[in-house]
C-alpha cells in the first residue's frame, strides 16, 4: 500500500497541476505533493529498516534497503527543488523571461508545463527504484528521459532546443543499448529459470540464480548495460549531453537531473552489477568500471580548468562525481559499496545547493558566463555568495563536509585492493578539480564591490538556500543513526551479501 501511495502521489499532483488555472494553486499542489511524498519515503525507509523488504502485487513492486534509499533521496531532492522552484520562477516572471522567449505564450502555460511535467518526471524516477522487474525498470528509465525533454527545452531558446535534442537522441541510443543488455540478461537466465512469465526478469528471482547464468551472454549484456545506463548517468565518453542539458534547463530541473536522475541511472547499473558479479566474479565488472570511472573524472579535469560558464562547470562536477561513484563500485568489497552509497547520499544532498546558488547568481547577473561577471558578488548577495563558496568546498570534498568522508572511504577501499595506481590517480585528479573549481567560484564571489543592486530579497530563494545549507553543514558532523543503518544495509545489497 505504501509503495502504491508513493507512486500515486506524484501522478496525482501532476494531473492536478495540469488542471489548475493559476500559479499559486500549482505551487501549492507541488509543495504539498512533494512534502507528502517525502514523509512517505521516510515511512518506507523506517519500515524497510524494521521489517526488511516490502513488496506488492506479486513482487511487481518491491523495495529493499537500496530502493528505499534511492526513493528517500529522490523525494528529498524533489522537495528541495519544489521549494526553490517557487522563488525561481517568480523571479523569472518578474524579469519577463517568459514573454521574451516562449513564442508569445503566456507565463501561465510555461509554468503549467513545469509544474505538471515535474511530478511525472519524479514518478518515473520513483518507479525506477521500486520496479522489481528489470524490464519495467528500463521502461521507467526511458520514461525519465521522455518526461524531462520538454523541461530541458523549457525556455524555448535555440540553444535549449539544441540541448533537448542532444539529450533525447544520445539518451535514446544509450537506452536502446541498455534494452539490448536487458534482453541478453533475460536470455542468459532463460534456460536456468525455464520461465517465460514476468518473474523471469524479476531481480529478486534473478539474483538467487545468477551463478548459473550463461557466462558469455552475461558478459556482453553487462557491457551493453554499462554503456547504456552509463550514458544516462553521464559517464565519459557518453557524457556529452550533460553540460548542454544542465546549462539550458531551468535550475530546479538541472538540479533534479544532477542529483536524482544520476542516482536512478546508477541504481540500474548496480542491479546488473550485482547479477554480473554473482555470475562472473568481481574481476570482470571491476576492470570495466575502473576504466570508465577514471575516464569520467579525467575528462572533467580540463573542462573544469578552462570553463567559461558556471552552469556548465556544475555539469562537469556531476560527471566527475559519477566517475567517483563508478570507481567506488569498481574498488568493490564492503568498503567500496559503503563508500559509493555514502557518496551517493551526500552528493544528492549537496548538489542541489550548488545549483540553487548558481541559479540565484545567474538570475542576478542575467548571465552564466564568468567573463561577464565582475566578481565581488558577496557584496550584493550576502546570502547566496558565501553559501556558493561553502557549497563549492562541500562538493569538492573538503573536510569537515560530508563528501570528504565518503571520498575518504572510497579511497580506503581503493588502497585495500591489489592495484594501487587507480586510487593514486584519483587523488591527483580530485585535487586538480578542487583547485580549478575553487579558483572559478572564488573569483566570482570575492573581490571588490562592482556596484550591483542588492539581491537575495526573495524569501523562497533565500530560505530554501539557508535550509539546505544547514543540512549540509550538519551532515558534516552528524549523520543520523537510522540513515546510516539504511545506507549500510543498502551497501550489503550492493556487495551481494543480501
Amino acid at each position: 500500500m505504501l509503495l502504491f501511495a508513493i507512486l500515486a502521489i506524484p501522478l496525482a499532483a501532476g494531473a492536478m497541476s495540469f488542471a489548475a488555472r493559476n500559479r499559486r494553486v500549482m505551487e501549492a499542489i507541488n509543495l504539498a505533493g512533494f512534502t507528502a511524498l517525502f514523509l512517505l519515503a521516510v515511512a518506507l525507509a523506517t519500515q524497510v529498516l524494521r521489517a526488511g523488504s516490502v513488496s506488492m502485487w506479486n513482487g511487481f513492486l518491491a523495495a529493499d534497503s537500496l530502493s528505499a534509499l534511492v526513493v528517500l533521496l529522490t523525494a528529498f531532492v524533489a522537495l528541495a527543488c519544489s521549494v526553490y522552484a517557487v522563488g525561481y520562477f517568480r523571479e523569472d516572471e518578474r524579469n519577463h523571461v517568459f514573454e521574451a522567449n516562449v513564442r508569445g505564450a503566456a507565463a501561465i502555460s510555461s509554468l503549467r508545463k513545469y509544474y505538471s511535467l515535474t511530478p511525472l518526471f519524479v514518478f518515473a524516477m520513483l518507479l525506477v527504484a521500486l520496479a522489481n522487474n528489470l524490464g519495467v525498470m528500463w521502461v521507467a528509465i526511458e520514461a525519465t528521459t521522455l518526461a524531462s525533454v520538454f523541461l530541458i527545452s523549457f525556455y524555448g531558446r535555440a540553444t535549449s532546443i539544441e540541448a533537448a535534442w542532444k539529450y533525447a537522441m544520445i539518451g535514446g541510443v544509450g537506452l536502446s543499448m541498455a534494452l539490448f543488455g536487458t534482453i541478453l540478461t533475460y536470455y542468459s537466465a532463460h534456460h536456468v529459470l525455464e520461465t517465460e512469465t514476468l518473474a523471469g526478469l524479476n531481480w529478486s528471482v534473478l539474483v538467487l540464480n545468477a551463478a548459473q547464468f550463461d557466462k558469455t551472454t552475461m558478459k556482453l549484456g553487462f557491457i551493453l548495460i554499462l554503456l547504456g545506463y552509463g550514458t544516462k548517468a553521464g559517464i565519459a565518453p557518453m557524457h556529452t549531453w550533460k553540460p548542454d542539458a544542465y546549462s539550458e534547463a531551468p535550475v530546479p530541473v538541472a538540479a533534479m537531473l544532477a542529483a536524482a536522475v544520476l542516482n536512478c541511472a546508477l541504481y540500474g547499473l548496480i542491479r546488473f552489477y550485482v547479477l554480473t558479479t554473482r555470475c562472473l566474479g568481481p574481476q570482470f565488472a571491476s576492470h570495466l568500471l575502473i576504466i570508465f570511472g577514471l575516464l569520467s573524472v579525467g575528462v572533467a579535469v580540463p573542462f573544469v580548468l578552462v570553463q567559461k560558464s558556471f552552469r556548465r562547470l556544475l555539469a562537469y562536477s556531476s560527471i566527475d562525481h559519477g566517475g567517483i561513484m563508478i570507481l567506488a563500485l569498481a574498488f568493490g568489497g564492503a568498503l567500496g559499496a559503503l563508500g559509493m552509497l555514502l557518496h551517493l547520499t551526500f552528493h544528492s544532498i549537496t548538489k542541489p545547493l550548488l545549483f540553487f546558488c548558481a541559479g540565484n547568481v545567474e538570475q542576478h547577473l542575467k548571465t552564466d558566463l564568468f567573463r561577464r561577471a565582475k566578481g565581488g558578488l558577496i557584496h550584493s548577495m550576502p546570502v547566496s555568495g558565501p553559501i556558493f563558496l561553502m557549497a563549492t568546498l562541500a562538493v569538492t570534498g573538503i573536510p569537515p563536509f560530508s563528501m570528504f568522508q565518503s571520498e575518504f572511504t572510497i579511497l580506503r577501499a581503493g588502497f585495500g585492493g591489489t592495484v594501487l595506481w587507480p586510487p593514486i590517480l584519483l587523488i591527483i585528479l580530485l585535487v586538480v578539480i578542487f583547485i580549478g573549481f575553487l579558483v572559478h567560484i572564488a573569483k566570482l564571489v570575492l573581490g571588490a564591490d562592482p556596484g550591483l543592486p542588492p539581491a537575495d530579497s526573495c524569501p523562497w530563494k533565500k530560505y530554501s538556500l539557508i535550509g539546505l545549507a544547514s543540512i549540509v553543514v550538519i551532515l558534516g558532523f552528524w549523520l543520523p543513526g537510522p540513515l546510516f543503518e539504511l545506507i549500510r544495509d543498502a551497501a550489503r545489497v550492493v556487495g551481494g551479501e543480501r
Partner: protein
Amino acid sequence: MITLMAAFVLVLQIAMVGQRWLVTNIRVFAAQSFLLAGIANTIAYFNHAPHLYIAAFLTFTLKAVALPIVLERLVNRVDIGQEIAPIVNVPLSLLISGGLTTVGYIVAASFHHPEESASPASLGRNTLAVAVSLFLIGFFMMISRRKAIMQVLALLSLENGLFLAAISLTYGMPLIVELGIFFDLLVAVMVLGILVYRIQETFDSMDVTKLSRLRG
C-alpha cells in the same frame, strides 16, 4: 521461413541506407516493421507463445501503420527538402553496412550452444545475426545522417533490431515489459516529432549539424 523473412528485413534495412528520398525511407521502415510483425506471428504460431501475437499486433499497428503516418505528416507539415543529405555518401554507406552485417554474424556466432538444440536460439541464429546487424546499421545511420527526422527513423529501426533479437532469443520479453516498451516508443516518437518541428521552426532547417552552438 523465419530466416527468409529475417533476411528480407535486413535487405530492407540496407535499402534504407541506400535510399535518398525521405518519404521512401519511411515506407521502407513501414515494410520492415510489417515483416517483423509477420516473423513474430510465425514464431508465436510454431512455438505456442500466445503473448507474441499481442506483440506482433502492436508492431503492426504502431510501427507499420501509425508511426509511418505520423512521420509522413510531419515531413509534409514542415515541408522540408525530400533528400536525406547523408554525411557519408551512399556507396561507402552500403559498404560499411555490409561490414557491420559481418560483425553481426560474428557476434551472433558466440551465442551458439551446440549442446542445447532445444533453446530458442537454435531456431534462429541467423535471425539473431540479422538483429545484431540491424542494431549496428541503425547506429551507423544515426551518426551519418543530417536530417533530424532521419535520426528518429534510424532510432526506430534500431529498436526493430532489438525486437527481433528479443523474439529470436527468448520468444519476446514478458508481456508487461513489451507493452511498456511500445508505450515508451510511442511517446518517444511524439516527443521527438514535436522537437523536430521546433528545430525546423527555430533553425529554419532540419540539419542537425547546425545544432552546434553549445560547446565546451
